[in-house]
């Protein structure tokens, strides 16, 4: 097992014929992911990278049986693309696009409430289940197969964590980058819940950052459900000044409860293995599993 994506994922690429879409469709296919086609409005009927191009997601889904979609369309059109995928019944929607207005994402989240699709992102690196499917833009070789689940708001920091886990002699069940925006499809807690239910995942690495309450919510859920799997937590931005946005639209300290220190304290109180230095993630996972 694993979560969200696996060798049965049939993947559509929205924004297929653009530069990003083309490059990453090739990379995903080279990794072995089941890319079955793509959508570029107005280019339906063409072939691209040897795969069919469709005008709409619903047609693409009917023709290919796709259950997963990855979105590379520009910010101004991304909310529409997410809703189109949900309307077509795509089960897992991964939105890579950075820079979507918050007002659009509020509408997207509302739209998804009454539908059965799960959105990952936006502004994220995607999801990878090693040796099975990469639905994202991460370097696949870093992620070796194993039993550690990773959930993170950041891209390169996810790669860093995976690299440390692998170098410490373990591997990854699935890694999810949930995205750095203030309004996203899948929260830290929801990702942790999925890992908690996955028999293949033995420990969870939770990488958060300043801003918002997601890590605190996840930590309280872990405490309240007496989760038996160890959870190793790191919060980036211990040195970030309040009120300044640190790259990610959602990485800004707004109050007293969304600082790195506050989140680390809550995570510790809830029984997580909190690491102060990002250099210690791999080692701490190994120690937590040995206990």
């Amino acid at each position: 097992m694993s979560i969200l994506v696996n060798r049965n994922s049939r993947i559509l690429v929205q924004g297929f014929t653009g530069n990003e879409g083309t490059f990453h469709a090739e990379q995903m296919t080279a990794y072995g992911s089941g890319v079955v086609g793509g959508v570029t409005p107005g280019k339906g009927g063409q072939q691209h990278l040897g795969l069919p191009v469709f005008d709409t997601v619903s047609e693409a889904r009917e023709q290919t049986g796709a259950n997963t979609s990855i979105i590379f369309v520009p910010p101004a059109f991304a909310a529409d693309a997410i809703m189109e995928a949900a309307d077509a019944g795509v089960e897992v929607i991964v939105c890579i696009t950075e820079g979507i207005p918050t007002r659009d994402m509020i509408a997207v989240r509302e739209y998804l409430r009454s539908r059965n699709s799960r959105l990952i992102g936006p502004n994220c690196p995607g999801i990878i289940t090693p040796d099975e499917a990469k639905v994202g833009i991460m370097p696949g070789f870093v992620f070796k197969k194993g039993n550690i689940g990773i959930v993170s708001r950041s891209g390169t920091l996810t790669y860093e964590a995976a690299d440390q886990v692998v170098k410490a002699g373990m591997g990854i069940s699935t890694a999810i980058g949930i995205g750095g925006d203030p309004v996203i499809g899948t929260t830290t807690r929801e990702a942790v819940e999925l890992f908690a239910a996955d028999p293949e995942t033995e420990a969870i690495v939770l990488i958060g950052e300043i801003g918002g309450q997601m890590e605190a919510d996840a930590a309280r859920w872990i405490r309240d459900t007496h989760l038996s799997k160890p959870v190793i937590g790191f919060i980036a931005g211990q040195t970030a000044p309040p009120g300044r946005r640190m790259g990610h639209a959602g990485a800004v300290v707004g109050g007293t409860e969304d600082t790195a220190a506050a989140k680390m304290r809550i995570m510790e109180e809830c029984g997580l293995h909190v690491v102060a230095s990002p250099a210690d993630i791999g080692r701490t996972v190994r120690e937590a599993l040995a206990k």
Partner: protein
Amino acid sequence: MNLHEYQGKALLSQFGVAIQQGIPVHTADDAVQAARQLQESTGTKCWVLKAQIHAGGRGKGGGVKVAQSLEEVREKAGKILGMQLVTPQTGPLGKKVYQILVAQDVYYGGTSPVQEFYMSVLLDRSLGKNIIVYSTEGGMDIEKVADERPDKIHKEVIDPSVGLMPFQARKIARNLGLQGQAFREMTRFVPALVNAYEQSDASLFEINPLFKTSDDRIIAVDAKVSIDENALYRHLDLEALRDIREEDPTEVEAGEHNLNYVKLDGNVGCMVNGAGLAMATMDIIQLSGGKPANFLDVGGTASAERVANAFRIIRKDPNVKAILVNIFGGIVRCDRVAQGIVDVCKQLGNMDIPLIVRLQGTNASEARALLDASGLPIQAVTGLHEAAEQVRACVA
């Protein structure tokens, strides 16, 4: 992106939100002229002069003054304009005042007592919905109210499927203790405020104080407005309101090169690909005994040109005593980044401060070999622990 008070109020006014009338000016002469004009249009008998800077607590630093006569307007405007205004939010250096807002007096006497409320519209991240936060305790620091009297803070959630409903505005007016004319005014004020917030893609509207006059009018006396930068592409009129004098010049320059840079006050500069890893690298610097001098995300590609620009920007800060480069190569190959760093160092010449370069990921060993063979005084490392140790040695 933050707006000045006068810009925020003009925006509110466009959407039919009642505001305290005022005119922004750059000189004491213009202030007198503006005061006369306001006297004619509003009948005000005295004026409030407010420094226009992007920071709160202006009154505490002497940036807000009342003038009883036109002579006083000239004198006090002259004092505020050009001053280096220090408030609890500006830091010790303060901010230079280029502009003041000459505003009408709203405390005029009348049949009912004046009241100061608090109201803001903003995103509740946990809910993924906008909310209205309001309180009877206006005119003071809302964080303080939240700490001391949390029962005095009310929240109203705006359901995205239907938007703000009229009953919610009535509930707010009721909870603020309003009746009659003031109640009716508030039920018009709240929807106008929410409409302005939504239509301008704002991330914050804060009205403090939200004021009830002695003749039962409800008006915004201050306006703190932030616009969602991701939405500026569809608000070119608002983008034009950006005042770069309020920003750090190096940050502005970095932005022109599409680099995400935030200046900090430490001694170790850093250049990283990815925002999360950049924050984590700042944390490592601190845990190693240094203090981060900046946040800098060069982006996923970390091309030679971006690396060159990033180095120039970091080197502008005289406090920087060492630089830590931390790149996790994924799609971008580490040897390419390493070559970029070597080229830039040769081009910029005499690198007189320690440069620690940590390259991990795709082609990391080739990158290290390239750096080692360059003959440059670069301390190449591959692990984060090693990087931390090198930083520790540099700042010791």
